[in-house]
């Protein structure tokens, strides 16, 4: 039994972290808030060059041929740095979905371009009223139980505006047909949802971890009543409880990645456990971060709100904690007594 990552996996994580420290500073995230597209082709190119974008694409299609376990630490970093790029949509869900369900032609057409960083793919699954990064070259849409892979010429996009302006959301109308059909299998749609939920959980852990770290650093230096507020027992206990939640969420998230990578019988439930736990942990970290920062955290100038808003948005993506709890309950009670 070995519930840890390999040194190669940590090495890749560290390399990505270094890149993001340079390319995805809070200033860069603010630039994404303000810019027209919200995206940086240069940054995406650098991620592609590192092999991150094509991480889950098979080697035969020019990717790294790695799996969910290799990816999960990268997603956590993406969450931590608020990476404003469709990494989750492209690398965690879109590309694997095409690889799994696409025709040979579709795969040969798209996967090499995705891996090379020349094309992006996004997904719009049932239950969401919009599609993130719907300007992607290929958009996978779930409609009436079927998955379609649709190119921009068949799409009409209406931009929406998220409170987290780095998130680029669109209301999408599509001309669908037999030629856009990707899969009619409910199992495949579920598989895509599980991947999206688990990947979102990984990002949530990154977001929550970043907020916790910022808050710990803040309470170590902020003084009130003649002492550092981090020395108050009430503050210490809140942060201890938050750490417990965030660190425990990592266990759930890493295992979900492994279960999905190995297609275990409990993979769906592992994804639900991860999303439910990570959503709750992030909510708690979000609450304590703002409360303990006090007034400064409510200013536009301070960076905290960039994380607060991303965290809140992700809590509600691909099923909130309550939805996943109901899914788990249904599974528990569906199994034989």
């Amino acid at each position, binding site marked *: 039994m070995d519930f840890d990552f390999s040194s190669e996996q940590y090495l890749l994580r560290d390399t990505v972290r270094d890149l993001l420290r340079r390319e995805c500073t809070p200033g860069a995230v603010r630039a994404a808030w303000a810019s027209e597209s919200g995206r940086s082709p240069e940054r995406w190119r650098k991620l592609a060059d590192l092999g991150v974008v094509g991480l889950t694409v098979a080697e035969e299609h020019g990717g790294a041929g790695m799996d969910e376990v290799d990816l999960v630490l990268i997603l956590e970093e993406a969450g931590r740095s608020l990476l404003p790029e469709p990494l989750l949509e492209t690398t965690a869900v879109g590309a694997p979905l095409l690889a799994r369900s696409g025709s040979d032609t579709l795969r040969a057409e798209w996967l090499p371009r995705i891996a090379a960083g020349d094309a992006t793919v996004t997904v719009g699954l049932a239950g969401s009223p919009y599609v993130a990064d719907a300007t992607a070259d290929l958009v996978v849409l779930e409609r009436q139980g079927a998955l379609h892979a649709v190119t921009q010429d068949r799409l009409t996009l209406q931009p929406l*505006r998220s409170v987290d302006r780095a998130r680029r959301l669109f209301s999408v109308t599509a001309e669908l047909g037999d030629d856009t059909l990707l899969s009619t299998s409910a199992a495949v749609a579920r598989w895509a949802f599980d991947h999206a939920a688990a990947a979102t959980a990984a990002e949530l852990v990154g977001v929550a971890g970043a907020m916790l770290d910022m808050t710990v650093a803040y309470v170590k230096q902020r003084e009130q009543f003649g002492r550092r507020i981090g020395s108050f027992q009430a503050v210490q206990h809140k942060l201890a409880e938050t750490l417990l939640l965030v660190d425990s969420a990592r266990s759930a998230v890493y295992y979900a990645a492994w279960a999905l990578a190995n297609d275990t019988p409990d993979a769906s439930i592992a994804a639900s456990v991860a999303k439910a736990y990570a959503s709750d942990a992030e909510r708690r970290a979000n609450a304590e971060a703002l409360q303990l920062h006090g007034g400064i955290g409510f200013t536009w100038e301070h960076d905290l709100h960039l994380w607060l808003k991303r965290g*809140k948005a992700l809590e509600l993506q691909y099923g909130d904690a309550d939805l996943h709890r109901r899914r788990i309950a249904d599974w528990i009670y569906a199994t034989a007594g």
Partner: protein
Amino acid sequence: MNFELSGEDAAFRDEVRAWFADHREQIEHTRAVDWEAGGEAFERYRAWERALFEAGLGAVTWPVEYGGRGASMVQQAILNEEYTLADAPNRINRLGLGLLGPTLMVYGTPEQKARHLPRILACDEIWCQGYSEPNAGSDLASLRTRAVREGDEFVVNGQKIWTSLGRFGDWIFTLVRTDPAAPKHKGITFLLVDMHSPGIEVRPLIQIDGSARFAEVFFTDVRVPVANVVGRVDDGWTVAMALLGFERGGGLYGPALFNRILRDVVELSRREPRGEGVAADDPDVRRRVAQSYIETRVYELTVQRALTRLARGEAPGPEASLNKLYWSEMKVRLDELALDILGPRAELGPGSPQAENDGGWYGDYLYARASTIFAGTSEVQKNIIAQRVLGLPRE
């Protein structure tokens, strides 16, 4: 025990309700704009305040001698309730009417009362509050804005933050350090400063919802007559605490507000699609709606108990901390429930097609989260409750 209004209070309620009904048009006219836009928009809000004043509804609890009608706290609560039910505009004059006015009545000189109270009442001058500083949040007494006496004047230097109405204020009541050598709570003076004085700079403070309802106020060699000191020099802490008492206690945030939010949440849950049905079919939503009903109902009842005690002449005490703690934490849960009902739609902000209420729920949610911080954080309230209500020992 009796939940009926007395004849007098019922008559007051009827009067107020009728007045609001008569002023529906002005209410809608005023609410159609945001005072933050300034100019004509702001003047609509001032006109609304004046209309209230002329109807004798501007400051009902002020004594008759100061132009109020000496109404009871119960009547104030009735007015608040009707105000909310009428969906009447936010009040640009609340800091003067609710906080500074009552403070001046106790601590002001005859000249200060004569100079300021009528103008507050008529909304001729807008007041803002200069308490918080960047390094003095919960620990208000650690403030650093200093005032040095030169003859009949103080020379003020420093910075205040979280000043509501800062861009529109004619006057600011503020705390300044006049004796840096004294212990922290001594050596602070409560000062009234003309915002039009030279050396004052107001910068809008942009909040995380993108609005600028607060400002930073910078003082550079601002000269203030000594006659503008309220209470005694170096004894401003006493005055400041009395004023905070009006903020925390006198408020008794109106239950009607929370009842209305709950009603809106219930309506939202009936409409919002969820799977094959609507959110109201979801057992988790139902449980949380029920819990919020319980909490808002219990809040309303607790306020009624407190009002009864006040009506019997009991002074508001540290129990005000229980009230603040209760409603601020409840409000976060209510608004968070609304976002959870909206699900992925919750993040859609102002100007976004498909956004519910133009993103208003998210804005409310952010504001609710501020409410566990302003006017004494939840942590400070719990300290007060533990030490002053339960009598637990300080560290």
